[in-house]
């Protein structure tokens, strides 16, 4: 089965995010108020062929631990859906 995966890579809580703070500092200067807690991450999208959803998820989890994230500073949220 083919699945569409979207891995959201985020900085762990407590890890300083220089991009997030720069964006946050810019918002009031541009007239946008009330914007706080800006955190920047990345989204990695791909398709994966696997026997079933559980297997696909397991493979992606391992991929995240070994390659897509640096576990020292980053977390991953995996979104998976069956492709048509």
């Amino acid at each position: 089965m083919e699945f569409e995966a979207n891995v959201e890579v985020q900085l762990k809580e407590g890890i300083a995010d220089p991009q997030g703070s720069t964006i946050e500092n810019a918002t009031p200067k541009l007239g946008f108020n009330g914007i706080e807690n800006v955190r920047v991450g990345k989204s990695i999208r791909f398709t994966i062929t696997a026997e079933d959803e559980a297997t696909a998820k397991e493979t992606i989890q391992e991929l995240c631990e070994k390659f897509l994230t640096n576990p020292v500073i980053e977390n991953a949220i995996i979104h998976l859906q069956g492709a048509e």
Partner: protein
Amino acid sequence: MNPTIGVIVFPGSNCEQDALEAMTSLGASCKLLWHNSPDLGDVDGVIIPGGFAHGDYLRPGAIARFSPAMESVISFARSGRPVLGICNGFQILTEAGLLPGALQKNRGLKFLCKPVELNVQTTNSVLTSEAIKGDSLTIPINHFEGNYTCNDETLKELHAEDRILLTYKNNPNGSIGDIAGICNAQRNVVGLMPHPERACHPLLGSTDGQQLLRSFIESSRL
């Protein structure tokens, strides 16, 4: 006999010739080693130079750590022999798990390229054995992701085990504890963001890098 230092070259490395030139001028034999071969030859020490290995795609060092040469570098390091990562090389060593922590984007998001003042915190490492504790060294930095970070537990360990080798006098990048360079628990794997190979000739404005590279050469001789 002078020790032979291998300098690993990845696609996107750009400081390998500087490292080779500096190490040769200090009396070491030096050779460049292409990342795609696991054969390090008969080297006594390994340098992972600065640059942008594999374009820094995904994260600096994330792809480079899987190069065939890195497996050999990991065994080489585990056998207790000296390994030095400079700038991108430091990032690669953290990604490869040979050094703890990670290097984040600089605080303020500026690419920094300037000489900085460093304090020598310990002489107990393959990079600082010929330096003098408490001395101030002027060595250039040249990075966007040099903001060293680690969890509290690791930071405590680094302090307790005297593994912080060099600190910034005026922290340029937000690095935790002003850390510019660290070593592993065995003290044979070292990583630093500043470029000692660019501070080895009076024409370059400083020769303070020589004592660090000379330390590495002497440690490779053992």
